């Protein structure tokens, strides 16, 4: 059963209230920014296409909070949340998506290519599977340069059927690379249910083909995601090699742009909204006895930081014309 069996999520005493509130804030900022991006898209401020992660915030926040300072992360075109979870500034992120000079990539990358190496976000890739081989390289290079860092790699359920997935997991296992292959199984690849694209029962089971551990986790439970990722990170750091994590979740919006997602069965979205990762974390905070005021305060703060970020981003100028010719070569 892919659908979480309950709303409540188990507590983890090792996570202080502050940490949980930090996760809530991060998840709220991500969702808030995604909503602003959707709004900007409908206003033609976002070019091409954009892929939002509303509903999947627990996965990126739970996983990225399990990383250390020196660790690295790569993700996909659906990577706004992952990049923000690593600590990328909201304003520069939004500025990139609306193509401004102050954007993370100076406006050259856009929604599908957010990169902020200062926070360890080494890139968002728009070719399915293309960044898995690169995640291996980041782990290998770090090891070679004596940098004790782990490489976290986000990708989707649909990406597990492409060749690069296979080659990457195998090589990571053979070289015992410190990589976390984090599969966000949001049940669909574009408009196709994942079960229509493979006969394997659980994507996590594919780890067996590479002699690596595979674990499936409730991707809407930020604490559970944090725990399994922390274990995988510890394992990777110890030199024991990579782990495949299948985080089962759901995207509230369509695949991209204005996809109405009519291919979803009646009521599916509603059921998943009941287990919205934000609601579930909020519930946990309440059972911990954290006052409504503190939670509301966090929500207000998140809202405000998103508002000001969007404001400053939209005030920024477009890239200067000569930027076109820069950065082709070093």
């Amino acid at each position, binding site marked *: 059963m892919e659908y979480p069996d309950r709303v409540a999520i188990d507590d983890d005493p090792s996570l202080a209230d502050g940490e949980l509130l930090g996760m809530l804030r991060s998840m709220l900022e991500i969702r808030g920014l995604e909503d602003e991006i959707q709004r900007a898209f409908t206003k033609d401020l976002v070019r091409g*296409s954009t892929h939002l992660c509303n509903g999947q915030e627990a996965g990126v926040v739970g996983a990225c909070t399990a990383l250390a300072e020196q660790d690295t992360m790569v993700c996909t075109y659906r990577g706004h949340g992952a990049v923000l979870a690593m600590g990328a500034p909201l304003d520069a992120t939004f500025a990139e998506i609306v193509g401004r000079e102050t954007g993370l990539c100076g406006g050259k990358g*856009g929604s599908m290519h957010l990169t902020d190496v200062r926070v360890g976000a080494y890139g968002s890739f728009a*070719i399915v599977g293309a960044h898995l081989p690169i995640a291996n390289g980041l782990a290998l290079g770090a090891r070679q340069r004596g940098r004790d860092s782990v490489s976290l790699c986000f990708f989707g359920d649909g990406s597990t059927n492409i060749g690069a997935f296979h080659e990457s997991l195998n090589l990571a296992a053979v070289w015992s690379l410190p990589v976390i292959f984090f599969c966000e199984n949001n049940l669909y690849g574009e408009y196709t249910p994942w079960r229509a694209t493979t006969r394997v029962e659980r994507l996590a089971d594919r780890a067996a083909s590479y002699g690596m551990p595979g674990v499936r986790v409730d991707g809407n439970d930020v604490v559970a995601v944090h725990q399994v990722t922390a274990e995988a990170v510890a394992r990777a750091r110890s030199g024991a090699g990579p782990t495949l994590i299948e985080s089962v979740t759901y995207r509230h919006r369509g695949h991209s742009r204005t996809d109405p997602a009519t291919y979803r069965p009646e009521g599916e979205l509603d059921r998943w909204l009941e287990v919205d990762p934000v609601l579930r974390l909020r519930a946990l905070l309440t059972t911990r006895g954290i006052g409504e005021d503190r939670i509301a305060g966090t929500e207000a703060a998140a809202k405000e930081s998103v508002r000001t970020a969007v404001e400053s981003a939209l005030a920024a100028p477009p890239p200067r014309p000569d*930027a076109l010719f820069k950065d082709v070569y070093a």
Partner: protein
Amino acid sequence: MSVTTYKEAIRQAQADALKADPTVFLLGEDIAAAGGAFKVTDGLMESFGGERVMDTPISEQAIIGAAIGAAIMGSRPVAELMFADFAGVCFDQIANQLAKYRYMSGGQVSVPVTVRLANGAGQGFASQHSQPVENWFLNCPGLKIVTPGSVEDAYGLLRSAIADEDPVLFFEHKAMYNLKRVRTGELAPVPIGQAEVVREGGDVTVVATQLMRQCAERAAEQMADLGVTVEVIDPRTLVPFDYGTVAESVAKTNRLIVMQEGSAGGSWGATVVARIAGDCFESLDLAPVLISAPDTPVPYAGGLEAAWLPDVDTLCEAIKAMDRY
């Protein structure tokens, strides 16, 4: 329904081919139940069934390979790769298998595969979804490459591609999907390998495809007002290329401009300029001009991408510069 746009023409060509020939089938990611990422196969599964319009996993190598094998067994596959840039993940299947299978086997097999690719820049899809991918396959003998630049050609070249006994890469420009049809009359197959003189003129020959062909037509209008007549040629097929039509035109105008969307290195435009410079040197009064995009990946921001794409003004300037002599 009567076809009114480039996108509908491509859809209709597939529908008509499916109707006309029971061996034709379509495969690709989200082309069936969802009708395609660009809706170019919308409704075809409903009309022809899941056996003839097949969804696939995200596995481009498997898609092209399935098309190759099925073609050899007597079917006529039309494989959609969605964004042309995804040809990178199945390049071997196209360049090393599809293109060479017949030759390597000494002609024992025919491989009538059509590959549909949504090509080109102009819409803010950034570096990995905006490339002029036709230039990746020019040096792979065995392939045919078409680049329809009108609603009629979109329909006609796709019908011909599907009917062709050889592999054909069908590059549809995704910025032209909503291009409106201007001419009337029946849509019909357009022979592969025949250029079209889109507009006659005697002063300068401009060779261009798709978006750049549109620029050329606009530029020709503007120049006409200045009394300069521009002959606009759309090659329509890049491989095999119709050099005869271009040579004929150059013999008349003595001036050649090739305008293309991508950068110059290894491009079809450079190939044409080199060939015409060699074959028609005596006809050329002036240096042939190749207008291309700069040697950079395609940037995201609107202003940058607009600056990257060659445009009408650049072309008009080039024409004027020639006319000054």
